[in-house]
C-alpha cells in the first residue's frame, strides 16, 4: 500500500516538474509547480516529517507561489501562449548538461551500497527521538541551540530581501 501511494505521489511530482519545464504559459507552469510541491509534501508525510509537510504547503506552495502568481498577473503574462523553449543547439546542450548531471547523480546516489560513506554508521533512526520530543520539539532543539546564529542571520537575510525588493519595486520619481 505504501509503495503504491509513494508511486502516485512520485509520479505527480515528476509530472508536475516536467509540466513546469514544458508548460505553455507561465500560469500553467505555476499550477504544475503547485501540484509538484503539494505531492512533495505528501512524500514528506511518508518520511515522518509532518511539520515540514505543513510548512511546505503553507509557506512554499502557499505564500511563495502566490507571490509568483501575483507577479504573473501584474505583468499580464497569462495571455502570451508563445512557446519560448529554445531549440536547436541549446536543446542539445541542455540535454548534454542534464544528462551528465543526471548520470552522475543516478549512478552515484542510487545504488544502495554506495549511498553512505563506509565509515559512517548507517541506520540511525530518528523515530525514537521524534516520539520522545514531538516533531516540532525535535526540530526546535537544534534550531535554538546549535544553529542559533544561523537562525538569527536568517532574520538579517529576510530583512535584506525586504529592503532589496522595496528599493527595486519603488518607482523612481
Amino acid at each position: 500500500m505504501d509503495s503504491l501511494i509513494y508511486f502516485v505521489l512520485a509520479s505527480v511530482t515528476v509530472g508536475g516538474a516536467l509540466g513546469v519545464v514544458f508548460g505553455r504559459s507561465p500560469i500553467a507552469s505555476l499550477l504544475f509547480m503547485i501540484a509538484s510541491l503539494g505531492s512533495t509534501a505528501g512524500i514528506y508525510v511518508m518520511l515522518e516529517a509532518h511539520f515540514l509537510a505543513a510548512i511546505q504547503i503553507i509557506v512554499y506552495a502557499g505564500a511563495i507561489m502566490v507571490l509568483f502568481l501575483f507577479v504573473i498577473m501584474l505583468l499580464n503574462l497569462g495571455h502570451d501562449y508563445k512557446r519560448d523553449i529554445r531549440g536547436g543547439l541549446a536543446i542539445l546542450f541542455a540535454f548534454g548538461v542534464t544528462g551528465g548531471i543526471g548520470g552522475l547523480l543516478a549512478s552515484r546516489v542510487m545504488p544502495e551500497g554506495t549511498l553512505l560513506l563506509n565509515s559512517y554508521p548507517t541506520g540511525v533512526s530518528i523515530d525514537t527521538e521524534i516520539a520522545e520530543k514531538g516533531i516540532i520539539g525535535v526540530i526546535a532543539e537544534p534550531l535554538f541551540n546549535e544553529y542559533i546564529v544561523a537562525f538569527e542571520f536568517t532574520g538579517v537575510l529576510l530583512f535584506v530581501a525586504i529592503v532589496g525588493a522595496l528599493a527595486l519595486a519603488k518607482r523612481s520619481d
Partner: protein
Amino acid sequence: MSFLNQWNYFLALGPQAILTTFAIGILLFGVSRNNTSDEHQGWLLGRISLAGVIAAGIVNAGLYPFADRLSDGIVAVDRYALFSNWVLLLGSAMAILISISYVEKQRIQVPEYFALLLFATVGLMLMTASLDLMLVFIGLEIASISVYALATIDQRSPKGSEAGLKYFLLGAFSTGIFLYGVALIYGSTGSANLTEILNATVDADDTGVMLITGVIMLAVGFCFKVGVVPFHMWTPDVYQGSPMPITGYMSVAIKAGAFFTFYRIFGIYLDNIQFSWGTVFWWLALVTMIGANLVALVQNNIKRLLAYSGIAHSGYLLITVLANNTTSESGLLYYLAVYTVANMGLFAGFVLVANHAEHRVEVSDYAGLGSKQPFIAMALTVFLLSLGGFPATGGFIGKILILRGALEDNYLLLAIALVISTLISYWYYLRLAWFMWMKEQAATPNTEKAPEIEIPLALKLVLAVSLVLIVYAGIFPSQLIGFIETSLLKG
C-alpha cells in the same frame, strides 16, 4: 570560552553585529529625513556607513585577544577570519567612498544603497567566519541577495536591470547546485559541520562516491560565484551593466569573501579527500588562466576588460587552494589583500574618468589622460602594473608567493601556465596604460570634449591610500607577510 552563553556569539560576531546595526540605522535615518531632494544625503549617509565600517574595524581589532579561544560551535573567531574581515572591510570602505559622488549624481536611492552595501559585507564576513556549511550558505545568500539588488538599483538604466537579472538567474542557479552539494555531503558524512566533516573523512577512499559528487557540486557552486572559466559567462555582462562602484565591489569583495571561504572549506576541511577535487581544480585553474587572459586581449570596454582580468585572477588563486601549503596560503591572503586595493583603486579612477556616470568606458576614452590628469593616470598605471604583477608593486610579491607555493607542491605545469598567462596579461594591462600616456585624444568633431575632471576628497583619499598601500606592499613586503603568517589556518 564556550558558546553555551549566547552573549559570546555577540562577541564573536561583533563586527557583523555592528555593521548590521549601522545598516538598519541608515535605513531609519533615510526614512525619517523624508526629503529625497536633499543633495548632500549621499555624503551624509556615506559618512555614517564609513563610520560603521570603522567601528566594525575597531571591534575586529579588539577580537584579537579572543582569537582561537572562541572556535568551537559553528562560528570561528580565528586569526584567519579576522584577517579576512580586514580585507572585506577595506574593500567595502573603498566602495563606499567611491559611491558617494556617484549616488548623488545618478540619483540612486541613497539609504537603501548604503544599507545593502553594508549588509553584503555582513554576509561575506559571516561566510568567512563560519564552520558550518549551512551558515556558509546563509552568509553567501545575504551577500548575493544584497548584490542582486545593488546591481539593479539604478531604476533608469535598462542595462542595470538586465545585468541584475542575469546575475540573479545564474546566481540562484548556482545556489541550487551548491545546496545539492551540501545535501550530499551532509548525507554522506552525517553532518554539515566542517569539523565533523573533517573527522568523518579521515579514512575516506574513492568508494564514497556520494561524498565526491557532493564536493564537486559544492565546488561548481563556488566557481559560479567567483567566475571560473566554464562558469564565468555571466561575469562580463554583469560587470558591464552594473553601476560602476558596485562592479568594483563585486569584483573585489565577493571574490575575496568567496575565496577566503573556498580555501577554508577545501584547503583545510576537505583536505583529506583532495583526490576527489584536485584534478578538477587543476584543469579549472589551467583553463581559467589561459582562456580568460586570451579573451581579455580583445576587450575594448574597460569593465569587460576588468571582468576578464578578474576571472584570470580567480584562476591564479585556484592554484593556492590546490597547492595548500603554508606558502601558498600566505600567497592567497597576500594576493587577495593586494588585489582588493589595486582593483578598488582602479575603479576609483574609472569612476572619475566616467565623471560618476556610465559613459566613457571604452579603452580609447583614456587617450591623453596622462597629459591632462597626470595624478590619476599615474595611479591607474601603478594599479594596472600591480594587477599584472610588475616588480616593486604588491602584485609581484603575491604572484611570487603563489608560484613558490605551487612549486613546493610540484605543480610545475600550473606554475609555467601562471607565468605565461601573466605575460599575456601584460599586453592588455599595458595597452590601457599606453593609451593613457602615449596617445593623444582623437579630435573628432562629433565626440564632445572630455569634461574637466575634478577629484572629490573621497576619491582622492581612495587613490592616495591605495597607491601608498600598493607601493608599500611591493617594496617592504616583510611586515605584511609577517602579519599574514600569524593569520594562517595551517600553521
